[in-house]
């Protein structure tokens, strides 16, 4: 089973074409294994990216170096997945 320990979901709301372009650059970097939950779709629309733990540092550095504000939407994906599983088991019981 795939686990998502340490994965975070970052939320970026591009407010300029320059910011949008910096986010789109991330889509090309396959080695980062980024999972775009919400893809770039224009200014003012949130872009949500699940970032595996090993890629967190380079991704945040890329955004900060280019002055692209972001927030952490989900601190630890695995924690939410575990919670979901626990709830399912509890309800089933």
């Amino acid at each position, binding site marked *: *089973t*795939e686990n*998502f320990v340490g994965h975070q979901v970052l939320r970026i709301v591009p407010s300029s074409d320059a910011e949008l372009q910096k986010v789109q650059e991330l889509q090309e970097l396959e080695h980062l294994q980024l999972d775009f*939950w919400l893809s770039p*779709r224009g200014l003012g629309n949130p872009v949500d990216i*699940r970032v595996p733990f090993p890629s967190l540092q380079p991704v945040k550095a890329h955004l900060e170096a280019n002055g692209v504000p972001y927030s952490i*939407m989900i601190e630890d*994906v695995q924690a939410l997945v575990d919670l*979901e599983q626990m*709830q399912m088991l509890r309800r089933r019981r």
Partner: protein
Amino acid sequence: FVPLSTSTFDYTSYHTLEEIYAFMDLLVAENPNLVSKLEIGRTTENRPIYVLKFSKGGTNRPAIWIDTGIHSREWVTQASGIWFAKKIVQEQDEGLANILDQMDIFLEIVTNPDGFAFTHTSNRMWRKTRSKRSGSLCVGVDPNRNWDAGFGGSGASSNPCSETYHGPYANSEPEVKAIVDFVKSHKNIKAFISIHSYSQLLLYPYGYTTTAVPDKEELHQVAKEAVAALSSLYGTNYKYGSIITTIYQASGGTIDWTYNQGIKYSFTFELRDTGRYGFLLPASQIVPTAQETWKALEVIMAHTRGHLY
């Protein structure tokens, strides 16, 4: 784990594929005069693909199609589909009487069974089908890029490892081909609604081209009314419009194909995450999400019923 009846079924929790299939059988058994279960095909991993048919009789009546779960990780959609199935039964002589007197409703709750099973057993974030092709490093095709509408154009990827991989050819995925064959053989579907999550959108064609659909004005008006009804329940804010103008270019999409088949009332929902959970929407939000979506579905179904073509 099989509930005693659809009245004791837990609509406020997420369920496995087996539990959902057991629910379907219960609903059919409890309502033999209204509900039947059709198998429209088998998946890559040879799972049955089931569609629930709600009909008060007649043959090949004008119909409404609703599907959920084509992207397997979007769990709130399959969970909402379960709730819709029960709601249709509950409303058969009230709110839906007018529609069911003249139309049938087809509901495909788990449109991507292999992917859905995989989210429960191996990877909660799996989106695509589970097709495997020799020579390809990666598994799966995006079933919402595999339709014969602008197939392979911009807005889909030719990289098998991409989440938006369009597949080797249109309808390569049995989950897509099953619906294509069903729609083509039925010939009388008047509305086609494909439900995704997340980001609070109600979309109509096209996604693969900036060309506006001939029925744009009407579809925009219906979407406006549907979104107003949806928001009236819990205040969830939706945007609406054509796929390409509201989000981005997406080729090979479901409702572009259905619209081009002549199904005028073709819509896609992107259900809520009004908070910050994305695909991991807490189960406590299943019922409110289904309830508000139902308000919008009622508008679309009533408009279709009142404007048969």
